[in-house]
């Protein structure tokens, strides 16, 4: 049905139907174009995320050309196992130690044992008399007091000393799947061009390698990418989380309670609030400098543990887990405070008034009425803040975590390394294989963050179910 257009009084002022149609068409096209443009931009963000994850996975798996000093299959066969069904991973602790005994010179073996012994009750490389003698000397080696090694440690020792793998070339996942022959040709060409030094082509075997595997997670740090693991770094990160939480949660929630429930509007409290907002915008590296100047340097007797003992300090300087944990705690604090404040402010005023009307004091009201209701919000905000702190690298570099550490952290006064630090160091090395383990460590870090986030969701759901 079409309506007759009413007569127009002045044709000059209004567009003709034709003009009107083309104007409308132009406007619609513009609107359509804009919508597509916006959607395209959003898609770019999705593509960026996908590419990032793809890059990490791509470098964590793939074909490698590896030269082993001893073939793992031969080694397994030499112990009487069938190499078809048994791998090096399946060997028992005793068999692994036996392999070391058979393949390592006695001098190296003694050094390893003095570092950390293999069995609680017997010695493998040292004789009992010598052991007693060096342990009663003035400077006993670490092995005299430390507990025995575990299977993962000995496994990586076997890798390092018996198998001695050397990855001479690696290929990313996508290319390994699409075009595995190209890799073989590349390696063969590399041998012809003499790029692999003393190795000959028949020494190298081409195999699949998942750089992200359980051995990688369990092995201690090492300077050789083929055998390096991230256990030391994971433990370091876990220690950091614990100290950060212990410091930031009580202080942050306390400050939020003070600001929301107790503080009356005053110039000082306004100042505190503005200050917290400002702190939330300070770059993390500045917190690192604060940690370096105050915690590592000024408070060295405290952060190195020297004031807690009369003997030698647990650490020779303040570059310890404790310093780094408190630094991350200070960094997290503004975020914890702000998110806890939001959660507390969301609690209806009627609850406060009811509590006070019944004669409860302010703190009693807060403790038994307001905090339980605000808890899910507080917890979610806190865990998300801590998850952010776990991924922070810059402050850790500043407080001195960037040195090469292979020993697991044993307490708050230990030297340590952390997952982001390992990723940073491995990424900055030029060799290809370090890229691979940096990618694998990134997967581990992302999984750790995922776990923390899942934890936040679970806690929130649990708490909100209990409170109707």
């Amino acid at each position, binding site marked *: 049905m079409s309506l007759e257009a009413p007569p127009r009084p002045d044709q000059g002022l209004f567009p003709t139907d034709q003009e009107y149609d083309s104007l409308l068409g132009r406007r619609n096209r*513009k609107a359509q174009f804009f919508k597509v443009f916006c959607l395209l931009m959003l898609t770019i963000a999705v593509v960026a995320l996908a590419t990032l994850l793809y890059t990490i996975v791509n470098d964590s798996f793939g074909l490698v050309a590896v030269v082993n000093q001893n073939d793992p299959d031969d080694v397994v066969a030499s112990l009487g196992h069938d190499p078809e069904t048994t791998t090096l991973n399946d060997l028992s602790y005793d068999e692994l130690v036996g392999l070391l005994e058979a393949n390592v010179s006695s001098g190296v073996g003694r050094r390893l044992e003095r570092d950390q012994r293999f069995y609680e009750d017997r010695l493998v490389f040292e004789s009992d008399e010598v052991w007693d003698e060096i342990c009663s000397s003035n400077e006993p080696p670490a092995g005299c007091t430390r507990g025995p090694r575990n299977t993962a440690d000995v496994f990586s020792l076997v890798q390092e000393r018996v198998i001695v793998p050397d990855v001479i070339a690696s290929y990313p996942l996508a290319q390994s799947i699409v075009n595995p022959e190209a890799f073989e040709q590349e390696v063969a060409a590399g041998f012809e061009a003499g790029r692999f030094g003393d190795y000959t082509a028949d020494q190298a075997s081409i195999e699949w390698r998942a750089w992200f595997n359980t051995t990688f997670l369990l092995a201690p740090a090492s300077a050789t990418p083929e055998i390096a693991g991230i256990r030391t770094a994971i433990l370091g990160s876990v220690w950091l989380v614990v100290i950060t939480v212990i410091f930031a949660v009580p202080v942050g929630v306390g400050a939020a309670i003070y600001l929301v429930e107790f503080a009356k509007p005053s110039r000082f409290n306004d100042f*505190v609030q503005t200050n917290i907002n400002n702190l939330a915008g300070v*770059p993390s590296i500045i917190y*690192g400098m604060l940690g370096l100047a105050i915690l590592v340097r000024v408070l060295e007797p405290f952060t190195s543990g020297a004031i807690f003992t009369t003997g030698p300090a647990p650490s020779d300087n303040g570059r310890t887990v404790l310093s780094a944990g408190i630094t991350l705690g200070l960094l997290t604090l503004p975020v914890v405070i702000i998110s806890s404040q939001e959660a507390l402010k969301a609690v209806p005023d009627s609850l406060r008034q009811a509590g006070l009307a019944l004669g409860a004091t302010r703190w009693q009201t807060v403790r038994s009425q307001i905090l339980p209701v605000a808890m899910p919000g507080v917890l979610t905000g806190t865990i998300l803040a801590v998850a952010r702190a776990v991924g922070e690298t810059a402050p850790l570099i500043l407080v001195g975590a960037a040195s090469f550490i292979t020993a697991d952290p044993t307490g708050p006064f230990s030297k340590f390394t952390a997952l982001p630090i390992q990723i940073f160091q491995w990424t900055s090395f030029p060799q290809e294989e370090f890229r691979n383990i940096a990618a694998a460590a990134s997967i581990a870090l992302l999984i750790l963050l995922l776990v923390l986030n899942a934890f936040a969701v679970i806690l929130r759901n649990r708490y909100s179910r209990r409170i109707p």
Partner: protein
Amino acid sequence: MTPNDQVEVDRTPKSLLKQPRPGEMLIRGFLFICGAISIATTVGILYELGKESLLFFQDERVDFFEFITGTVWQPQGGAFGVWPLILGTLLISVIAMVVAVPIGLAAAIYLSEYASRRVRGFFKPVLEILVGIPTVVYGFFALTFMTPLLRSVLGSSVVGFFNVASAGVVVGILIVPLISSLAEDALSAVPDSLREGAYALGASKFEVSTRIVVPGALSGIAAGLVVAMSRAVGETMVVTLAAGAAPRNFTLGADSFFGYILNPFESAQAMTGYIAITASGDLAYNTIDYNSIFAIGLTLFFMTLGLNALSRRMVKRFREAYE
């Protein structure tokens, strides 16, 4: 009536009157100290940065005037002009903003004005995951994906292995979620009555978005952009890994502006990169290197503080307009 207004009642028995409660006071005191720790943090930052910077400027090799005007940063050669490092930071931040502003704003407009619930449910988590990824992983991404990509597209003779463009683009990706979420907040704070009024006059969705909603939310959006800029200026890991470790020293007038000073395809150290690289070795106290990172840190601190303060003022004005 607020809860702390107390009603005066005559002839109340003495036992019911307000009594001193030591426990309550103790807890109150503890909570107050918690609040005060944040002040102590600020004081600590200002004091330490200030003190070490002062030591830096007292050193005979350093001249304050040279620091704020000099265009050569060469600690070994005794040249301490801060501009090469600021130049690195600004180049990276500007590239990051060029990448992030269109993406972030378009994403915010789409999510706030166009997207259905289902579309939001897909895109919002993607942006949240982007926020959650640690910056060191972005650094890895810059070095192993972005740099090779730029080098293969533009030629490895044009693009250096360490270059500002790669770092800038990746920092841009990193701040997209920040821009989009702050801008989306600002857009959704614009009252619906404005949108409805415009629709009633026959405006298309595009016209409502770009002529009514965006101008209405402009100061909020601008505040978000300033915060994002401050985040880009303070970003460390991507910059340290991908932009290189040599400050881009230059001489005004002698060096070509676009060929060298502003060339995005060559390396340039940023302020944060200098601090991180210098501190990652075994840094001895009371050396000029140690003191210099604090002077740079103080410069960085004031830059980000200024940007954040500016953004808060903008937000305040924006809130006043609609509340």
